[in-house]
């Protein structure tokens, strides 16, 4: 029964993906990638929440609380919440820059503003590399969700099926597919989260769940956890919209007004999280035996819900992972074709795009199978690299002085430092290592820009009136 309900919803979503393109010529690249910059508030909202609330929310977030306690719950909620005010102010300007430079990808923005081929390459390559942990995040969650269906298939088969499904969504309709499938996915996901939360709260009172859980975990943060939570919230809120796929969704909006207004309602969508928190603590309170903390949410769902409802929960989780994988593949494909191989002929371009997407999915799959990681740690890892675009983007928006040499060197120094600190497990007063790297990145970017300044001045976007 679980598997049947699950399959029906997955099939339905595939049909929607194929219907989504009707009436639009998706052969045209800007139609395929940014829907001709035509999305109004309603569909923009669904595309945004579809990509933001990935499987990291439903499966990863409760797992993080289960493994690391309250501090992981707090930083996760805090950074998403604060990303919305940041986006409220920055995203309209990023959209304006995208329009001015005819940008469809993040590297396009840098090329358009700085006219630098090497900077374009640096942004495109680091963009692809730091999307790998994000892919691993989705696959890890997908294995957990599919496991709950009771098919007893090896994880390797399940990730391959998941990869194939994600591929089917994007070849369907370009960016319209994730936008429209998001409507199904978000309905299922919210339904699943509320059902699980309510079921947990009504089986025992919330007070009893939390007091029982308190025997297994702390309900307040230690000093070190507090520093990590605070610095992670700031660092990741700043990087939220710099993910190459997030920026591309900003480009699909039809105006700056649409973006700002959509941004104001985003915090209300988070009202589903209290239900998820209750479900996570239920898993802790019941002392469910898990082979991996990532299973906390699904284990709670299995313990609480009848089979057919479990099918809805699994479908909601799986769709959220699949959609994001489809979105990432689309983004990577566009960066490869527009920014890495754009000087080659079209058939070679297309072949390379496919090779890179398949390679990307395979690397993510291999890492999922051989280096099992707490899902929230994968989120941290992706941000270490992606947020390093910030000094450059702020330069594009606000500064005449920032030069391509400064930005390129800043990104490389920031990324290398973050990777080194991560691999050596260096701990500097529990501060998020990405934030430390970002500070160094800012110093390098602005320092080098000052030293290498030329006669050339770059017109900051904030000083350009809306070209529409």
């Amino acid at each position, binding site marked *: 029964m679980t598997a049947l309900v699950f399959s029906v919803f997955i099939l339905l979503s595939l049909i929607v993906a194929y219907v989504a393109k009707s009436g639009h010529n998706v052969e045209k690249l800007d139609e395929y990638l940014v829907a001709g910059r035509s999305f109004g508030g309603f569909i923009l909202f669904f595309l945004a929440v579809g990509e933001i609330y990935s499987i990291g929310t439903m499966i990863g977030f409760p797992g993080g609380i289960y493994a690391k306690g309250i501090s992981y719950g*707090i930083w996760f909620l805090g950074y998403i919440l*604060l990303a919305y005010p940041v986006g*409220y102010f920055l995203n309209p300007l990023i959209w304006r820059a995208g329009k001015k430079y005819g940008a469809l990808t993040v590297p396009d923005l840098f090329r358009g503003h700085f006219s630098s081929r090497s900077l374009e390459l640096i942004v495109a390559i680091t963009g692809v590399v730091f999307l790998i942990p994000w892919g691993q995040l989705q696959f890890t969650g997908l294995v957990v969700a599919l496991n709950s269906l009771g098919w007893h298939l090896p994880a390797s088969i399940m990730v391959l099926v998941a990869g194939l499904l994600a591929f089917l969504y994007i070849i369907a309709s370009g960016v319209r597919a994730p936008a429209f499938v998001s409507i199904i996915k978000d309905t299922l996901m919210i339904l699943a989260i509320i059902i699980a939360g309510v079921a947990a709260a009504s089986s025992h009172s*919330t007070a009893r769940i939390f007091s029982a859980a308190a025997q297994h975990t702390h*309900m*307040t943060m230690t000093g070190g956890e507090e520093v990590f939570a*605070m610095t992670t919230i700031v660092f990741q809120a700043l990087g939220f919209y710099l993910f190459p796929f997030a920026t591309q969704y900003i480009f699909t909006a039809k105006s700056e007004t649409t973006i700002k207004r959509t941004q104001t309602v985003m*915090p209300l969508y988070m009202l589903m999280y*209290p239900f998820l928190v209750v479900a996570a603590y239920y898993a802790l309170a019941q002392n469910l035996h898990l082979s991996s903390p990532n299973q906390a949410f699904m284990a709670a769902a299995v313990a609480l819900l009848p089979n057919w409802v479990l099918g809805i929960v699994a479908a909601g989780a799986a769709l959220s992972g699949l959609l994001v994988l489809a979105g990432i593949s689309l983004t990577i494909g566009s960066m490869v074709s527009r920014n890495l191989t754009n000087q080659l002929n079209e058939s070679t371009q297309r072949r390379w795009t496919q090779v890179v997407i398949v390679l990307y999915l395979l690397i993510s799959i291999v890492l999922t199978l051989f280096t099992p990681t707490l899902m929230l740690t994968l989120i941290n890892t992706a941000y270490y690299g992606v947020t390093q675009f910030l000094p450059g983007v702020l330069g594009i928006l606000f500064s005449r002085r920032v030069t391509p040499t400064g930005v390129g060197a800043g990104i490389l120094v920031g990324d290398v430092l973050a990777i080194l600190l991560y691999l050596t497990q260096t701990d500097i007063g529990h501060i998020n290592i990405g934030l430390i790297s970002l500070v160094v990145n800012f110093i390098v970017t602005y320092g080098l820009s000052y030293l290498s300044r030329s006669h050339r001045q770059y017109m900051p976007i904030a000083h350009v009136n809306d070209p529409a």
Partner: protein
Amino acid sequence: MASVVLGLIVPFCGVVLALPVVNEVHSDVMGIPFTFFWIFLWFPLTWLCLTLCWRMWDHKACQDEKGSEP
């Protein structure tokens, strides 16, 4: 500028800077640990801050540039 204070600085103070204080509160609200309750409270509060920014200042700026948008 007033918009940045209300829309950006106020939520950052509430969610990040207040954490060390909030973390010292050891009681709970309706069974929920206070720190979680505090963050939950900021979901509607952040919405309120941004909505006020839009209503009071930013919709004018956007309309000045665009003209047609409702």
